[in-house]
């Protein structure tokens, strides 16, 4: 290996690491607020990328039907519950959020023929389809079990992951796709050639991380999420709805996931099941941070990205093995430093 290859691998590693960092942040966020270990995070990555790819191939993405279906299902369940409870006031909100919004998005997509639109419009539409899936999935799968143990929620997560992967295969087929890059520009910095897309990924990651920082530090909703993460009962007593907090954190996670997918789709071929491994690497980073610290998770993610890039050069067949065994020293350290007997739930 010479310096040029090292620089190239380093660049690769940092780009992937930035994506893992975004996913790790989303995972830490969802876990802290809802105690859900969000295995399906990766599916949002794949859905985001493949929805965009479907636009560019001139097809209507299957995720659109999923959005309509999930919205209708939530509307049905919530309407029945509202009627049973005799609270008609809820019906308007249900009609607006679960029926009208998905229908409007669908109408827009079918009317606009996104294949001919500029890239930014395609990206916006893809995000508009995938992001609402987050809160809808929270409503369908997790909300009825919000008080269950971490373990039960984890099993639900795995079930949701399987369902979404199966649906992904149904919607997008087994072939992978790539999308057109955001920018074809290339910059030469001495020996190193930097692609425009690389800068897009890094820039978007930084913007998102700063945005999240401001959201949690400066806005009422951000503070409500932090309060819920620290003490659910206490937050509820202060008038913060834990259901709202759950839906909001899932919305953020879906948004981060979909955007990550859209960012990497021009660099790597994305398949319907690519998201799982990508998401799990975000997990490795989150575990390094003990599922609590945001800065540690981001640092861990860069480490994972670099390790992956360099091991793909030296031992490409074993790169997954190497990345996933990275959690072992972390677990050793954690288990040696924790002594107390934990009482579950």
């Amino acid at each position, binding site marked *: 290996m010479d310096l040029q290859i090292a620089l190239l691998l380093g660049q690769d590693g940092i780009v992937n690491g930035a994506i893992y960092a975004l996913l790790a942040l989303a995972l830490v966020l969802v876990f802290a607020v809802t105690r859900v*270990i969000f295995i399906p995070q990766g599916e949002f990555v794949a859905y985001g990328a493949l929805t965009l790819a479907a636009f560019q191939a001139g097809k209507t993405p299957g995720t659109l039907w999923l959005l309509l279906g999930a919205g209708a299902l939530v509307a049905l369940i919530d309407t029945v519950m509202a009627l049973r409870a005799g609270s008609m006031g809820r019906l308007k909100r249900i009609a607006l959020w679960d029926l009208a919004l998905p229908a409007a998005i669908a109408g827009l997509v079918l009317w606009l023929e996104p294949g001919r639109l500029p890239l930014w419009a395609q990206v916006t539409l893809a995000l508009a389809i995938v992001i609402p899936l987050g809160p809808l999935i929270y409503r*369908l*799968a997790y909300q*009825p*079990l919000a008080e*269950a*143990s*971490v*373990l*039960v929620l*984890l*099993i*639900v997560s*795995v*079930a*949701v*992951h*399987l*369902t*979404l*992967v*199966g*649906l992904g*295969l*149904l919607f997008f*087929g*087994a072939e992978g796709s790539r999308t057109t890059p955001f920018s074809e520009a290339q910059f030469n910095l001495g020996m190193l050639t930097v692609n425009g897309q690389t800068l897009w990924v890094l820039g978007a990651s930084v913007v998102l991380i700063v945005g999240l920082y401001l959201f949690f530090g400066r806005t009422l909703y951000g503070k409500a999420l932090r309060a819920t993460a620290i003490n659910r009962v206490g937050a509820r007593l202060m008038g913060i709805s834990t259901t709202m907090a759950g839906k909001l954190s899932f919305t953020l996670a879906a948004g981060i996931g979909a955007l990550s997918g859209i960012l990497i789709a021009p660099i790597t071929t994305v398949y319907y099941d690519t998201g799982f*491994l990508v998401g*799990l690497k975000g*997990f*490795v980073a989150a*575990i390094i941070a003990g*599922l609590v610290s945001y800065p540690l998770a981001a640092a861990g993610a860069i480490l994972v990205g670099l390790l992956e890039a360099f091991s793909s050069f030296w031992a490409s*067949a*074993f790169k*997954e*093995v190497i990345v*996933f*065994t990275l*959690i*072992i020293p972390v*677990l*050793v350290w*954690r*288990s040696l430093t*924790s002594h107390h*007997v*934990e*009482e*579950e*739930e």
Partner: protein
Amino acid sequence: MKQRIPLLVFLAVLALGPQLLPEFYITLLNYIGLYSIVALGLVLLTGVGGLTSFGQAAFVGLGAYATGYLTTAHELSPWLGLLAGLGVTAAVALVLGFLTLRLSGHYLPLGTIAWGISLYFLFGNLEFLGGHTGLTGIPVLEFFGLKLSTGREFYYLIWVVLLGAVLATQNLLDSREGRAIRALKGGGLMAESMGVDTARTKTIIFLIAALFACVSGWLYAHLQRFVNPTPFGLHIGIEYLFMAVVGGAAHVWGALVGAGVLTILKQWLQDILPKIFGQSGNFEVIFFGIMLILVLQRARDGLWPWLVRLVPVKAKQQRTVAETEPLPCRQMPAAGTVLLEVKDARKQFGGLVANDNMSLTVKAGEVMALIGPNGAGKSTMFNCISGVDTLTSGEIRFLGERTETLVSREMARRGMGRTFQHVRLLPTMSVLENVAIGAHLRGAKGVLSSSLHLERAEEARLLSEARRQLERVGLGEHLFDEAGSLPLGQQRILEIARALCVDPCLLLLDEPAAGLRYLEKQALAELLRKLRAQGMGILLVEHDMDFVMGLADRVVVMEFGEKISEGLPEEVQKDPIVLEAYLGGVE
């Protein structure tokens, strides 16, 4: 006998199966059997123990590849292959368990996901294991010259192994070790205080689940006679967990139901779904996922309890406890010996000082009461003494030995029994079994003899001891009731019986009289007087002043984490500082 009928019918059908059924169904039953063995391990791990693994398929793979490699590349006997597989599996499970089981509950499943993926890629990329094509030409199994070369012959082996594993698991759960396992879910802290090493118990069930999976893999390799990485990936590991959850994760037979339902469903869905969707692929996962979510939302206990309700035969319930020779008891220290000595204890939680400058002693044959307003730090003191918490600084001596760094199970071993301010018992277990957990350290038989039920003599003595203590505290009529069905006051009394089962010389009681009626309080006071007369030291936290003053030999009063007064009950009652703490100052 009547309650055995469904089981006998089931066994008869199983035995006759291969004589009557066509090949296709034999194959299906063989796979159901193989999957059930794995799911059974998960029932023990997840349903009973409250831990989870998504990596069981990787353990199956270890079993299959170990024998596959040794019997083809080195032409060794399949029996050596089995031993090697079990050895490797045990080593991996112990390492993984050591890494994750001391951490909170979600690290084990996450660790097993990483492990499941890693092993799958290893199988696929190691030259000597045949890469993604795998290993072929694995020999058939032979029993005393009888070759098991067809599925029909193999069927009996699979089902004998499975039924043996079911029986062993059932036996294990109904034993001293089994009670410790059942206490893991929701009772870890309590079990530790009764002397159970919960980290060891968790490791044991993880190990058993891994070994079951390994055996299933060994059988699979010799049935199929070739192995490749596909059936050992993470997704199959997830399916195993589904089987356990859908079948009924807390019931041994649920494993069979779950494996059966999912295997048949998968077969059927794989047939029809590609036709419906017009393309090929593993679409059954969509339905499995949705089904699992619905099961967890609507029927968390799975299908088995629902099936049991369909069969009009009531399960037999144990209603008697054999009379046995009592367990040996420890030599009580002579009355007046100092049992417990706390000196300058300080406990800090971050910036909050919960205890400071606390000193007290408890002697054999006396009741020492620790009183004080709410939030004075009494329960923190209790937790530090009993090893649930550790002091920030200061000294605790129990029977002369420095103990401030010891964990609670070590305190139980040294003769300290305790109750909890917020009752900690296992609500669905019987009163008798709950109390028997207290006698955990007085039995010695391990997992192996428990699964074979070779420890029945010792078990009878433990249960008899539990009954003796329950009768002593006046709960003799409730031995077989569910512990959760008792009123709160009696649950507190149950905790005293459990603490007495530890065979303690020092008893720590945290508000034992709360929730009791007048007569029950008198009975409790009478019991504590008797215990005191037998030489037991009792440290009592209580808010009921009539109860305390009528019983205690000495009293320590705490406020804001510090001792403000100490002495005989009548002295303390007159102490102006105490009066101020309780009633407010006189201006």
